[in-house]
Every structure is written in structure tokens, then in C-alpha cells.
């Protein structure tokens, strides 16, 4: 049994951070939301380009993402900022977050009478929320409450040889301790989907996973171009990855060798009563993918890279691992762990898996990742439809 220290939430979940989140429900409210957050130390906004003139599944997915961020256990309290007339209504987002039991306040720019009055009201509410959540102390909780997002980006051939298999070992350790991991990036299952489908605990889950991969492959084919050049990216190719199949086959090592107990749509919540390895339908683009997993409940993310990347997240620590010893030496600002030791023969995969797992535990207890220490808070919503 591994005990961590975190923030108890009203619905029984546990946060490893205690953020005050300012959520704009649309692009029209994003600048105002950012200015409100800038006035209150510790508040963080998630400006975005969406929230209006969206329909159907695309609309629902954006709502699910904003609500999921608000409900994430790393968030102690929420201010929802809306313009007032947008498609994603502030009351809808605030209401669904409030169901989790945490305090949610709302500011509507059109009701306040403009930008300045909305900022004044929002900052006043935020300052009050900051004082309220600032009084909360960390308490003991079990590691089994942890949900880990698995991400890779800027991959090169060392990702599949060193970084991803090491992370797979760490994911196995977390699941053995009763916790949950989420494999993501549907595009990066193309060519490796049969390996993951074979690990699904039911045929229904396996069929759903294969359907999701076919759905994104068919969509890419509908554009009438070779996916290569986009997936793998120019940087992947320069690094030595030749096809999407090769990239995918290396990518899935992140998921270790545990059975898949759930298959989620983008930003859909993991089931706290069904712990283990999940797959979530996200794009290969890192920011949107991480955003989806965090909206689904991940409190922490481990991100493998070959080329190096600065990506963080507004509400969850992102632990950066490279399998490329040259990148580790070059990108010291950004990389937390050197899995390139597997390539240079200084460590084996089991040792690296343990090192990554131990690092995740320290970060869960409050150690800052390099991305956090640099203030990285990239946020991106995966759109599946048009804007009308």
C-alpha cells in the first residue's frame, strides 16, 4: 500500500494540486477570463477558440472538455466566465461542474455590463475562492486513486525502444497498486490496434477500439492525401521514424502489458469503480490529447519524447521522459527523466520504470515538474466538427 498526500474532494476523488480554475465558455469570454485570472495569484484560466456555433457531437465534446476540466480533482474551485449569448451556455457548464460538489461561481459579461465590470466582479469572486481553497491541507490517500495520462510527442526511434517501454513498466506498477492509466492518441494506434484490441477484457471493448481507429483513419483518407508528413510528422521522419505503423508500434509500449478495462470517447470520465488501463479516443496532437485525458480525470500525465517538447497543462503536472540521451543533454529546461540510459547501457527498462514511478509519486506529493516550474499551461480542445 502506497500512501500519498493530496486534497480530498467532495465526491470522494483526490487532487494532487489545488488549482483555482477560470473557465471561459467561449472564445468571446476568453480574454476576459485570462485577465481575471491574472489578477488573482494562483488562479489559472483556460482560454480557447471554441464554444459557439458548434453542433451535435462536436458541441457535446467541447462541453464535456470544459466540464471535465472543472470537475478534475486537481481543481479546488471554479469561476465560469461567459459572454452570455454563446452556444455553450455558462449555466450548463457551471451546473455540471457543481454536481461534483465543489464551489462554482459564474460571471456573465453581458449581464455585468462589459469587460471592466466583469473583470471586477470576477476578480472579487476569485480572490474569495482563493482564500477558501488556500485553507485546505493535504491529507493521506491511497495511490489507487491516481489516474495517469500516457502521452508521447515529438517521437523518434528511441521512444519505442527506451522511453515508451519504460513508461509501460511504470504504468504496470501503478495498475498493480490499484491505480488507473489512460492510453491515448488514436492516430498512433494505426497499425498497432490489433495488439491493444487483443488485450481488451471484452469483445465489445475491442470492437469499439478498432472502430475508433478506423474512424480516424477513414477521416484522414477522406482528405485525399498521404497521412505521412503529418503522421509521422516531419520531425518524426527526420529522427528516423518511417511510417505511422512504425510510430504506432513504438507508441503502444507506453501502455505496458495490462488488460484494457475501458474505452472512452474524448474527455469522457474514467469510472472510479473500474480501475485499470483505459484507452481514450484522442488525436496524436499532444495538447488536445492531454487536455482530453485530464478532462477525463487524469491528475498527472507522463509524456515521452524523442525530439524534446515543452508542453505542460494548466491543472495537471506533466512529467517529461526522453529515450534520447542527446535530447536529454540538449533540452535540460524541459526534460525531467533520462530514459536514454537504456540506450547508453546505464540502466535497464525495469530500473527506468521504477525511476519513473517513483518520480510520479513525488510529483503527486507536490514536487514541481519542469513544465510546472516554467509555467507551461498549454490547453487545446479536440474539435470533431465544423464551426457554423
Amino acid at each position, binding site marked *: 500500500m502506497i500512501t500519498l498526500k493530496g486534497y480530498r474532494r467532495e465526491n470522494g476523488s483526490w487532487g494532487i494540486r489545488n488549482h483555482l480554475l477560470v473557465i471561459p465558455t467561449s472564445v468571446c469570454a476568453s480574454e476576459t477570463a485570462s485577465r481575471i485570472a491574472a489578477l488573482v495569484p494562483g488562479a489559472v484560466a483556460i482560454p480557447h477558440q471554441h464554444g459557439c456555433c458548434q453542433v451535435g457531437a462536436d458541441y457535446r465534446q467541447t462541453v464535456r472538455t470544459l466540464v471535465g476540466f472543472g470537475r478534475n480533482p486537481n481543481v479546488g474551485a471554479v469561476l465560469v466566465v461567459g459572454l452570455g449569448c454563446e452556444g455553450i451556455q455558462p449555466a450548463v457548464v457551471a451546473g455540471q461542474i457543481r454536481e461534483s460538489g465543489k464551489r462554482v461561481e459564474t460571471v456573465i459579461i453581458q449581464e455585468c455590463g462589459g469587460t471592466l465590470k466583469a473583470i471586477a466582479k470576477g476578480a472579487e469572486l476569485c480572490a474569495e475562492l482563493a482564500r477558501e481553497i488556500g485553507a485546505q491541507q493535504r491529507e493521506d490517500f491511497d495511490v489507487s486513486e491516481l489516474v495517469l495520462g500516457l502521452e508521447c510527442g515529438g517521437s523518434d*526511434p528511441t521512444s519505442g525502444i527506451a522511453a515508451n517501454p519504460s513508461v509501460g513498466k511504470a504504468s504496470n506498477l501503478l495498475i498493480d497498486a490499484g491505480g488507473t492509466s489512460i492510453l491515448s492518441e488514436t492516430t498512433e494506434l494505426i497499425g498497432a490496434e490489433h495488439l491493444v484490441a487483443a488485450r481488451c477484457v471484452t469483445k465489445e471493448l475491442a470492437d469499439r477500439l478498432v472502430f475508433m481507429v478506423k474512424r480516424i483513419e477513414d477521416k484522414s483518407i477522406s482528405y*485525399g492525401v*498521404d497521412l505521412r508528413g503529418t503522421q509521422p510528422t516531419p520531425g518524426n521522419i527526420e529522427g528516423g521514424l518511417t511510417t505511422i505503423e512504425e510510430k504506432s508500434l513504438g507508441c503502444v509500449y507506453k501502455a505496458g502489458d495490462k488488460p484494457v478495462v475501458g474505452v472512452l470517447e474524448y474527455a469522457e470520465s474514467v469510472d472510479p469503480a473500474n480501475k485499470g488501463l483505459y484507452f481514450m479516443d484522442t488525436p496524436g496532437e499532444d495538447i488536445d490529447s492531454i487536455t482530453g485525458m485530464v478532462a477525463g480525470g487524469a491528475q498527472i500525465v507522463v509524456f515521452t519524447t524523442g525530439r524534446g517538447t515543452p508542453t505542460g497543462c494548466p491543472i495537471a503536472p506533466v512529467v517529461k521522459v526522453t529515450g534520447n540521451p542527446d535530447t536529454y543533454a540538449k533540452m535540460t529546461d524541459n526534460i525531467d527523466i533520462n530514459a536514454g540510459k537504456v540506450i547508453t547501457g546505464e540502466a535497464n527498462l525495469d530500473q527506468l520504470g521504477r525511476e519513473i514511478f517513483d518520480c510520479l509519486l513525488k510529483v503527486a506529493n507536490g514536487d514541481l515538474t519542469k513544465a510546472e516550474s516554467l509555467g507551461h499551461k498549454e490547453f487545446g480542445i479536440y474539435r470533431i466538427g465544423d464551426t457554423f
Partner: protein
Amino acid sequence: MNGYVHASERDNLVTCVKAMRAGERVLVDGREIEVKDDIPKFHKLAIAEIPKGGAVYKYGEVMGVASRDIHVGEWAHIHNIDSTRGRGDKAGKEQGT
């Protein structure tokens, strides 16, 4: 590691963990191979004859097909391996403006 990673016995190429020079001789699984091209670090070296259209294996799985005959010792990358997936270019005309 020995300068290369042969992830699975089935694989007809290996990943070089150091740059290789044309003319260099390397021992792969006890067999001497003459390197035919300069190969950048972490790129792939063919260790078997792969005829055009033949499957290219890595991690014991199909990672693409040879777009031309690939000979032992050659650099194996986008110039001689095609993907079989996400090939909208083969499906029809490019959409949009």
C-alpha cells in the same frame, strides 16, 4: 547496447543507435554486414533482402512495405518504405481549396 537494436527475430531491419558510414562492417547477430549507405543515428539498417512490395518488419510486426527492392546493408527509410495506412493519396483527389 551494441550499436544496434534488433527488436524482434522476425525483423528484417535493425535500429542503429549510432551513426553508420557506408563501407563500414558491422556484426549483427553474429553475421557480418557491409553497410551500403551513410545511416543517421537512430535510423534503420536493412539486414535482409526485401523485394519491392515485401513486408517490412519491426517489433515483429508489419511497419510498411518496400517501395523498391531493399538490399542487405542499405539505409531503410521513406525513400524505400511506404506506409500501407492512411493513404488518402491512393484513394482519390485531394479535397478542399
